[in-house]
């Protein structure tokens, strides 16, 4: 297990480093520098400033310095806003995105899991068809289209819920739905197929033969074993959440990290773009590593591979 752990963490760190190098090189290759102004500086002064910030060093040295600083929590300073370190911006805005992601995830599990179990329990009957239809719709409708439709229907037509911001609880419902429906669909789809497989196993027949109620057979014996494959999609779900927050936060005017990422792209605020990008890469690799470790812990067969 320890061997597996070390190997997995090592390859995670390597991935992050390669991604950081890629982002660094791409952004370095962009034209224009941080000291470009309308009135161009005399070249010797520009050279002094660049030397002061270490921009005259070879690229690899700048990269090592960036990584070293990043490890200490220093991701540089925003180009477009006065006196705003990238790390402060992340600390300010990330909690909101995390909250949105957490609610969406919670909704996905609370809605998707029972739906998947129900579909498997009533295989090829009406609940199964309804669940499958919902799952297909949920996975196919892009949240760029879903979010405005939710606003139009629940916000403007029925007038039940506010259509923007992130303040009172009722303003959080629509963004959560816009992001969470896709997750619920994926989870219900996977739970269903995983349950259908487990139900055919011998120990389920044994449980039924013992005279256990159907609820305890499905809910305890089958579901516990069916959950393992569902665990593996937590990584892809996080990836979906990250890209989803970009769109959903922008549409609902939520002051999270995703909407700021978009703003900093249009402002060409490259240190911020790179900082947020690295954070996203870090979160995803961390999550994938955790899921792998959890999976190996839950299923010893994986460790041997």
């Amino acid at each position, binding site marked *: 297990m320890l061997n597996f752990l070390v190997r997995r963490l090592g*390859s995670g760190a*390597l*991935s992050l480093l*390669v*991604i950081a190098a*890629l*982002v660094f090189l*791409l*952004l370095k*290759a*962009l*034209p*224009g520098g941080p000291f470009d102004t309308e009135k161009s500086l005399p070249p010797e002064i520009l050279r002094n400033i660049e030397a002061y910030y270490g921009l005259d060093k070879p690229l690899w040295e700048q990269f090592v310095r960036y990584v070293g600083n990043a490890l200490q929590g220093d991701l540089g300073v925003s180009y477009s806003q006065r006196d705003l370190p990238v790390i402060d911006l992340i600390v300010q805005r990330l909690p909101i995105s995390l909250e949105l992601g957490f609610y969406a995830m919670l909704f996905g599990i609370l809605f998707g899991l029972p739906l998947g179990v129900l579909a498997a329990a009533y295989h090829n009957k009406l609940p199964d068809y309804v669940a499958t239809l919902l799952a*297909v*719709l949920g*996975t*196919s*409708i*892009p949240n*760029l*289209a*879903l979010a*405005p*439709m939710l*606003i*139009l229907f629940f916000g*403007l037509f029925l007038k039940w819920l506010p*259509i923007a911001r992130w303040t009172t609880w009722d303003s959080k419902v629509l963004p959560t739905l816009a992001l969470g429906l896709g997750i619920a669909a994926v989870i219900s789809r996977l739970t*269903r*197929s995983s349950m*259908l497989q487990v139900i055919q196993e011998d120990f389920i027949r044994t449980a039924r033969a013992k005279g256990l109620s159907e609820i305890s057979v499905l809910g305890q014996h089958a579901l516990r074993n069916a959950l393992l494959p569902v665990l593996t999609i937590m990584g892809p779900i996080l*990836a*979906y959440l*990250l*890209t989803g927050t*970009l*769109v959903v936060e*922008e*549409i609902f005017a939520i002051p999270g990290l995703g909407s700021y990422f*978009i703003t900093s*792209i*249009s402002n*060409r605020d490259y240190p911020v*773009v790179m900082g947020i*990008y690295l954070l*996203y*890469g870090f979160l*995803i*690799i961390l999550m*994938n590593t955790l899921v792998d470790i959890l999976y190996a812990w839950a299923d010893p067969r994986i460790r041997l591979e």
Partner: protein
Amino acid sequence: MIETSASPTISKSLNRLAFRRFARNRLALSSFLFLLILFLVAIFVDWLAPRHFAEEDFLATYLQPGEEEFLLGTDFLGRDVWSRILYGARISLTVAICAALASFIIGVSYGLVAGYYGGKLDEWMMRFVDILNAVPTLLFVILIMVYFRAGNPDEFTGFKAIFYEWDSQLGGLLSIFIGIGLTSWVRMARIARAETLSLRRREFIEADLVQGFGVPTILFRRLFPNLLGTCIVAESVAIPDYIIFESVLSFIGLGVNPPVPSWGAMISEGLEGIRSYPHLILAPATAMTLTVLAFNFVGDGLRDAFDPKLQD
């Protein structure tokens, strides 16, 4: 002779069986017809659309659907929304085809080489794929688009100037194809590699080697046709992603150049006036949903038809 002639007939009837299975899948078939119509619309949109997508009319801004001769009303510049939706279909479908082609070419070549040579090369190539796979494709596409769109076009020289010229002629589509292609080949590479690995040990490849065929011939004339089917089906499942990528890029301002009508850009423009002019958002959102759904149904239908084992 009997043995050699047996394999083509089997594969032909297998294909026929697969198409019959596909035709029996009513959802997939009607989605296919829908896409067929959409393709025709995209091709003949210049004759079908009542107006050009960029034609502005400042005396007729923000008209509701059905007002005057505008089926779906007009937007903030007085442009006909219905025409822009139709032209948007051309954008979405062009992206779907070209991005799929780009990712197909890159991915299959990469997978063929990795799978054919195997060993250390394969190991390193696949490790690189794993690393790329760690970050969501959309984020990579965004990064590359940031790179493409940065800088002052007037200062571009050499290759970059030529690229920019072509790109702006196409309304920004060229960089979108390349951006999506450069990032979305990863899954295709995996599939092509797995197929190549299993085909490489077959007798007909050994026979080619004995006959002294060169590696390029074996890769592209002998192996490639055999993994074509699997890869096309896999690619068709990925097409909805490309359409969504383009829409999201245009939504955040990294996609097509205005006034080229992309559904994503239309949603972004309509967001401002969502209270008073819901049609400006409802139209592109519906068009996008229907198209993505249809591609999904066709992709799933193809997959089920060609590989019934995968059906759950």
